[in-house]
């Protein structure tokens, strides 16, 4: 098991976001986590890298209990995990090159020449070569997401976590990002978790889809299985039918 969440809970004040969630992500699998806006998908992703501390339960990556790791060991683990943010979260005072090189410089093990080469390889993988000297403000939203992906893969991580990678993008750019997610999984053999509410994207990139609802995993299965489910909550969400959701909730 490469990533495992067992009984994970998180509340903000009186609002319970994760309510004892259990989830497993297998080696080299791409799992899409779907759910309505505000259902806690991003919180779930952030608890995996401890950007948000879970209140209870066990979060395990590579057999290591993330919640009990020391600061130093947490940093070591984070070097194995690439995180792609919803709005890219590029450092806006740095060029594209420096953004992608940030994680590589941190390790202190690479020479300037090998950092330059790795940055070039990473930008080539996401088809952003030639943009090294641009600032984030000088490129489009889709390009920023691609640079964010290049930054996440530059350290050649074992895991890639994507937070809403296609939100706010046009259908063509969405397809480009989906292809990149598939390429990363194929060419870098990474284990991926993709948080999204875009069902077309989820069907395209995922081996397995899990739906988050009311703080729990409501359903987990292959894209074909989820399409065929008769769970009204899941069906209502994937088909965009509020009548089914309301009926089930009542």
């Amino acid at each position, binding site marked *: 098991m490469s990533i495992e969440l067992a009984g994970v809970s998180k509340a903000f004040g009186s609002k319970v976001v994760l309510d004892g969630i259990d989830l497993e992500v297998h080696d080299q699998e791409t799992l899409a986590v779907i759910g309505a806006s505000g259902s806690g998908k991003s919180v779930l992703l*952030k608890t995996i*890298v401890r*950007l948000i501390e879970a209140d209870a339960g066990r979060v395990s990556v590579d057999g290591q209990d993330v919640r009990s790791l020391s*600061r130093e060991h947490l*940093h*070591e683990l*984070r*070097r194995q*995990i*690439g*995180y792609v*943010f*919803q*709005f890219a*979260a*590029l*450092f*806006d005072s740095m060029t594209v090159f420096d953004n992608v090189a*940030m*994680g590589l410089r*941190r*390790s*202190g093990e690479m020479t300037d020449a090998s950092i330059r080469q790795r940055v070039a390889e990473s930008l080539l993988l996401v088809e952003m070569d030639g943009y090294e000297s641009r600032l984030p403000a000088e490129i489009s939203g889709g390009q920023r997401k691609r640079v964010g992906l290049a*930054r*996440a893969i530059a*350290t050649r991580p074992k895991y890639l976590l994507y937070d809403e990678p296609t939100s706010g993008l046009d259908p063509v750019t969405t397809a480009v990002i989906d292809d990149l997610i598939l390429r990363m999984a194929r060419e870098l053999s990474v284990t991926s978790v993709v948080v999204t509410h875009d069902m077309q994207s989820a069907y395209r990139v995922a081996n397995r889809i899990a739906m988050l609802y009311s703080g729990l995993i409501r359903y987990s299965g292959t894209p074909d299985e989820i399409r065929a489910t008769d769970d009204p909550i899941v069906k209502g969400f994937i088909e965009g039918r509020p009548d089914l959701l309301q009926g089930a909730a009542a």
Partner: protein
Amino acid sequence: MRRALEAPVAAVGRKALGLTAGFGRFGAFVLSAGRALPDVGVWGRLVIIQMARLGVASLPIALFIAGFTGIVLALQASYTFTGAVPLYFVGALVGKTMILELGPVLTGLALAGRVGANIAAEIGTMRVTEQIDALETLAYDPLSYLVVPRVLASIVMFPAVVAFANVVGVGGGWITSINLLDLSTPQFVRGLRLFFEPFDVQYSLIKAASFGFAVSSIGCFFGFTTQGGAEAVGKATTQAVVVSSMLILVLDAFWAVTLL
């Protein structure tokens, strides 16, 4: 009657509790930043960049304020002394007041606006756009990367800026005295040296260093704790400037009580 009194008392109580909790959070934040000090590999080269951004770039505004303060001090001293105190005391008043009080305090307040606002707005924006989270995922400690270099740079550069401001302030007073008052350079210098103590300069620079720490750490704290969007960044920036300005005046009184 009793019920009418309860509400304001409860409000004051809540405010006091909130303030105490805020001080506690700020203390914990500063301690955490202190624990990031051994991470020299991360903050080392960034300190120089911040020294230029926060210190060198602040010189024009600090010197502008100091120059005009020196001019006004000389003119007001002359106005006050006329006929009662020898005019060369203008040099003493300009030097003593500039070095002990107005140089560090006015520069501190100006830099609270410029540096404190800059730090809070920059870090606050990084917080709400997830850039601080991104630093963490790249295995950087944001305290080492963002807070330590800004605080250290401010502790070093505030005294440097204040030293220049003191010189320019006294210079402004001297130029005013020889051009607008009936005073010669030797007379001005005689007054300047009359009550001068080398400790005055130390006192001025110690105050400036403490102001640098206060302004930068408060700016970092409000930036780091920003939650929400653009409005929250604006609020954090305003709070940083207000709180650091107040703290400068408190520290000013503290150093006067403890060192003079």
